[in-house]
């Protein structure tokens, strides 16, 4: 069986940044396995701008952002295979993938980086009642039709869910000549970035109906309309508030799910909230030598943060391969508290560098304090003016503080100012 130092699963922004980082940290024997026809992942269909402000201090489109990393992969001659779908990862790091030509192959890796990204929640996962005609698509599928293939999924649109892709597609469909009747959001707040609400809905006079959901889909062959209703505090539809919207298309932007079937096949422990692997500050999973980064680990709002996380994972994987003798390490775990829905990383192992901690809050908050403490004392404090589930928070804990933590637990808390 062929042996490869580092196999990276997925050639999107996470996979490419991880590959470049591992290369720059001394690992040359790399293989990126990408299931699509080109590198770049979902960025290739994100032709709008707004990418790279954080990372490159310039405003790029998705393909332009992807190119920043594709070019490095090409220049460094990092090997990759396209149309190569990984079918299985074993616990001892054998990777089996289907190839466009010929039989599937299995390679033995010293380390693996999971960078498969995420998928969109579908209508079925929401149990929306009604008929099953053509014209019901996830926002990402519609984006692929419009931006990659050049076809319109419909011309009179209702969008359920105010996730970023839904907001982007509201604007995109409008620019292409379709009429977006409304964006419905079951929560009392949007799940997308504020800048997208402003630039994609407000600027185009597209109504955002908060605390509303689709309760029925109509039409036999093509969608002819949807019924929407207001929901109560428990997000249950309120009888009598139903409203009919004629449309030929329903787009769904109701959440992203990390694609972790391969992680499961390798027996990696998953976090129930993020849907991604449980990792330490190096992005190493519960299986030694298997790392994860990007949207397969937790869903990010900005690709810039995906790149950062992937660079960290690439660096860690390189270190793992080069320093094969590892000692038993003290494990410190992050503890969720009220109003914090998840934290990545979930744990720390022998800290040597500063650690950036990403987390999401569970509701909308104004003027709060983020407090990080161990069992005895407060380690870190930060004032936050506004926090929302749709915007990922990040804080930097410096290594000196982390080194003298008492006990094996760290708590992240949200307090009123």
């Amino acid at each position: 069986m062929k042996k490869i130092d580092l196999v990276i699963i997925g050639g999107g922004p996470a996979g490419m940044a991880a590959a470049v980082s591992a290369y720059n940290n001394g690992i040359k024997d790399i293989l990126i396995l990408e299931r699509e026809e080109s590198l770049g992942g979902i960025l290739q269909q994100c032709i709008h701008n707004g990418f790279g402000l954080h990372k490159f201090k310039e405003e790029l489109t998705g393909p332009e952002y992807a190119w920043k990393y594709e070019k490095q992969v090409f220049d460094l001659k990092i090997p990759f295979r396209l149309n190569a779908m990984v079918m299985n990862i074993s616990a001892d790091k054998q990777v089996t993938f289907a190839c466009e030509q010929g039989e599937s192959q299995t390679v033995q890796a010293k380390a693996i980086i999971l960078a498969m990204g995420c998928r969109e929640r579908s209508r079925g996962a929401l149990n929306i009642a009604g008929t099953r005609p053509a014209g019901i698509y996830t926002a990402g599928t519609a984006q692929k039709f419009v931006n990659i293939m050049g076809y319109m999924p419909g011309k009179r649109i209702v969008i359920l869910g105010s996730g970023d892709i839904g907001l982007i597609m509201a604007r995109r469909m409008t620019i292409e000549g379709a009429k977006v009747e409304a964006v419905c959001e079951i929560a009392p707040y949007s799940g997308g970035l504020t800048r997208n609400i402003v630039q994609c809905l407000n600027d185009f006079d597209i109504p955002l109906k908060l605390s509303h959901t689709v309760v029925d889909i109509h039409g036999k062959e093509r969608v002819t309309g949807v019924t929407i209703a207001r929901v109560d505090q428990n997000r249950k539809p309120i009888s009598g508030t139903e409203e009919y919207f004629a449309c030929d298309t329903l787009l769904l932007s109701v959440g992203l799910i990390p694609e972790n079937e391969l992680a499961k096949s390798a027996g990696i422990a998953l976090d129930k909230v993020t849907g991604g692997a449980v990792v330490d500050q190096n992005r190493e999973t519960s299986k030694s030598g298997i790392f994860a980064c990007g949207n397969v680990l937790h869903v990010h709002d900005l690709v810039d943060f995906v790149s950062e996380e992937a660079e960290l994972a690439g660096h860690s994987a390189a270190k793992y391969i080069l320093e094969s003798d590892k000692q038993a390490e003290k494990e410190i775990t992050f503890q969720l508290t009220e109003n914090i829905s998840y934290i990545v990383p979930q744990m720390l192992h022998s800290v040597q560098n500063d650690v950036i901690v990403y987390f999401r809050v569970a509701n909308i908050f104004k003027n709060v304090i983020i407090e990080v403490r161990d069992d005895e004392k407060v380690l870190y404090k930060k004032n936050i003016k506004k926090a929302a589930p749709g915007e990922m928070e990040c804080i930097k804990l410096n290594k000196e503080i982390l080194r003298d933590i008492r006990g094996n637990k760290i708590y992240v808390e949200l307090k009123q100012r």
Partner: protein
Amino acid sequence: MYDIAIIGAGVVGVMIARELSKYNLSICILDKESDVSMGASKANSGIIHAGYDAKCGSLKAILNVKGSKMMKQITEELSVKYKNNGSLVIGYTDEDMSAISELYDRGVKNGVEGLEVIDKMKLKQLEPNISQNAIGALFAPTGAIVCPYELTVAAIGNAMDNGAALKLEFEVKSINLLNDYYEISSHKETMKAKYIINAAGLYADEVARMAGDDSFEIHPRKGEYLILDKEFGNLTKHTIFRVPSKMGKGILVSATVDGNLLLGPTSEDILDKEDKSTTQIGMSKVIHGALDNVPDIPLKSVITSFSGLRAVADRGDFIIEKSKTNFINIAGIESPGLSASPAIALYVVELLGEMGVSLTPKTNFKPNRKIFAADKSKYGKIICRCEHISEYEIVKAIHTNPPATNVDAVKRRTRSGMGRCQGGFCMPHVVEILARELNINFEEVTKFGGNSKITIGKTKGIS
């Protein structure tokens, strides 16, 4: 001129077609939809019932027991999945247990083998995830599962390979008996046949009426279902039933042959024969009914819901009989129709023999159908990530009898789009492959024929 026209390409019609394709007869199957298996055959529980439920001596009982015994061999010949997982009817009260004891007696009389009434302890051994409140069960080891549309597609494919013709999008509008043959017309075409087999499912009453027979009526009974991710297909080993009522066998919990978990159906008499919508009330009934039996079902893992319409006749039993001259009705084939379908086919061939059809066996009948090799490692480029379906398999489905001409037809043949993302990633590629292979424009590709177009045209093309 065909010897025999079969109206309706559901599982019953195609099983008859396959049986008849063993003889020197010219056969044509007509269906109003853009694909086969578009009625009750695509949306049911996929259970091969043991046969304890139907009234002794009824056609339902006789043909169920016989059909279910034939099923294993047929599925082997057609290379479709079949799993003999066994069924359990769960009892919660003494009343339930006495009903179970009646089912046992009836099953024994119907000729069902291996039936056993088991206590709570044995039930827990067989099915650890069953509700704590269960006190016993009827165990039917001969119960099995199949995929109903996979079976239907394979059976018609095999019949076509043996010479049968299939005409889709042929909605029968009139039937006229001329001297010694029938003229069957749609709104655009007319064909001729000496004999007609009416297997039109929900519309069997209307088709019979066209031939002058108004002796029965069919009404639709809706059943709603939920399907869970493959991760939970092992939650129950057996098909789990409640004690049946006059509206059916209740909400079941069962693995499918593809490894998903299936919950449902509801049972609601409705008026509209085309109303296949799901409802909030229906889905909540399914959830509650399923949780009663198996409390730990992870509802977050539902990947889709659907509903099917059973064709319920006003006579209680299956209607399989000679009607007007050279005309056979097969109607009211509700549950256990799928299980009975191979036996119904034999029964119909016998009826045709009695009616004077000359039945000379073909010497070159090929019983086997195999389109995909078991080893998938050579299939190359994967299109459907969730179900690992390759481009090769999709292309093959488009060019193999019965040819797939739309996205849902590809899905039923290959499972592309049936996984956890429900086609989010693969569907645009499937549209591309269909357009290429059928040599049609991208925007002409439909979800399931008619006006169910996936896209409406090129960007910048909206007027």
